[in-house]
């Protein structure tokens, strides 16, 4: 009788625990893979801000790119996407990917010439697809040529799901093992 009750409790735990973790996932990224995106900034005349904490996002996310500069300057915003990247398991940092990336694989997906208004900023939303994004803001003028570059890595939903599954299995496995032992000992 006691064994039956214990088995029922364990089965219930198996049902409940995965749903808890699926919810806790919430689209956030693994803190171990968190990295700081280092800007390749040359001058502060033009600057790109991206509202992505570690530069790693998931497919379908919307990021906000804000170009900042002096009022009235003209800036060219270009967004490139490289879909030909290899995601290494547990080592997907932008730096590690950039080392192996082929420059020719970046495809221009957006190009805008814009003039910064009185507030000195230009915000733009972008809905992400899987791949590595290169965001370039270039200011051309009498005072010279200034450029800021940012990278954003967008993991596919399949990658994110795999990470989540791994996390789930690592916690659920001992419970399944315990159930198996109980059944076998019957």
């Amino acid at each position, binding site marked *: 009788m006691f064994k039956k009750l214990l088995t029922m409790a364990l089965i219930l735990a198996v049902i409940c625990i995965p749903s*808890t973790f699926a*919810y*806790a996932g*919430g*689209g*956030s990224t693994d803190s171990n893979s968190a990295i700081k995106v280092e800007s390749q900034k040359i001058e502060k005349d033009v*600057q790109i*801000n991206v*509202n*992505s*904490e570690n530069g790693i996002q998931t497919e379908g*996310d*919307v*990021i*906000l790119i*804000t170009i*900042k500069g002096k009022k009235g300057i003209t800036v060219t915003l270009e967004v490139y996407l490289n879909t030909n990247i290899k995601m290494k398991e547990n080592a997907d940092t932008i730096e590690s990917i950039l080392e192996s990336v082929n420059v020719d694989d970046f495809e221009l997906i957006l190009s805008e010439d814009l003039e910064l*208004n*009185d*507030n*000195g*900023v230009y*915000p733009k*939303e972008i809905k992400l697809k899987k791949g590595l994004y290169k965001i370039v803001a270039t200011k051309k003028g009498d005072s010279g040529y200034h450029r800021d570059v940012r990278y954003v890595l967008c993991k596919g939903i399949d990658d994110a799901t795999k990470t989540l599954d791994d996390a789930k299995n690592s916690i659920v496995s001992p419970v399944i093992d315990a159930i198996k032992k109980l059944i076998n000992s019957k």
Partner: protein
Amino acid sequence: MKNIERIKSLLLAFLVFTTIYLVQQLWVEFPESLFSSFAFGQESNEIKESEISDFILPEKYVINFGGNSRAIMYFDDGYQLWNKGKEILKTVFQSKNIKLEEMTNSDFEEARKKRAIGFYFSNDMHTFIFGKMLDLDISPSIIDSIKQIDSIFIYLDSPLDNFIVLSNGTKYFKISGVSFDYKSVKDEIDAISRSDFTRVYTITDLLATSDNNNTYIPLTVNFNLSQIYVRKEIDTLSEIEENNIATLFFNRDLAYIRRIEESDGSVIYVDSQRTLKLYENGTLEFFRNIESNGENNNLYLSLKNAIDFGNTHMGWPKDTYLYKVDEIEFENNKGYKFTFKYKLDGLPVVSDEEQVLNSIEIEMFNNQVKSYRRHIWEAIGKVTLKSSYKSMLSAYDILDRNYSFMKAKFIEKNNIDIDLTSAEEIDEKFKLGINNAYLAYYDNSTEGNQVLKPVWIIEVAGLSYIFDAYDGYVENGGNPR
């Protein structure tokens, strides 16, 4: 045979439960409105207290789906977020085992990335009164820590680690250690995440400030609001209606009341103790002498009595909320002034308060009503939006179009010496000064209109601006908040 008896018993039980359900529908739900139309039953404290809870409504809701993905809602839109949030708050505040701790700014910054819903109120609310409005007593330890509340955040990241945060705009207090069921709120948030919601960003993200400004504003809006046709709630052309109102306020035969018609179209009713004035624009003012009853001013009792007075004196419009409480003084007596505002079609009705009242104001001394002022619009229809009509502007669009104008006002108000301060520094200060943006319906009846138009209210360092939500023009330029 035994089976037949069992089926009969089940049938009988089913009929009994059906009867109980139908009787409950008939006697509990239906007659509630019926009873309220009669005078009896109003002495019950339960009815009065439950009514008080109707007077808190958030100004806006910010929903964080995790990370930096957030939605903003200026009206509930059928999700019942506030009603469901209130149930969670009641569970938390009634729990005996809470853990209360002040959060550092970095703790709160960290928590801002978690899955949560934030309720923002239009003004600071006394924590004690806030509890009373939830029909409970908030523990003294919470009241001592945070005397006023302007926003509440319910965190839903993990069922094992759920908590709430109370804020007065500058400090944040975390209440944890209480297990609460947030499934109903989570389901609504999931539904919103699947909808075409309005995304919102912080000023820091949108305007690229160096320091943090976590005021949320949308870059784009994906809905259009109509103008609303309105009419005065008091028909000042009808003497019969005016007399009916006077009877309500004086509660005696009008033969004993003097009626004076003024040249500006207003009408005054007066007796030895009381004065009622009905303005041509539909504003009502009532004053009376109050007797010294030996009672000390009590904030909760004053509020309760003010609400009761409103109940019996023309009632409360739908979606009325307590906007602010001021401490006042008259002939060395201290009292409270309660300002109630109301929403039409989900949004607050605003106006230039120096020119036209758009609220219900009640002054209380010794827990009695000293004065009562009200001006309310009744919605009678909406202006149909044509498909060819331009889209509504976002709060960002408004800021972008009016940036120089608002910055100039900011410089003037804060006495900033432009020769000694760099342009970048002024920009940064101005951007950090933006502390609120919300949608409302604007009453510009002073221009003879009886149409309320959707507007953006943007508040910067103590000044409040009203902008037309479609063309971005300034309706009202920088009145003190």
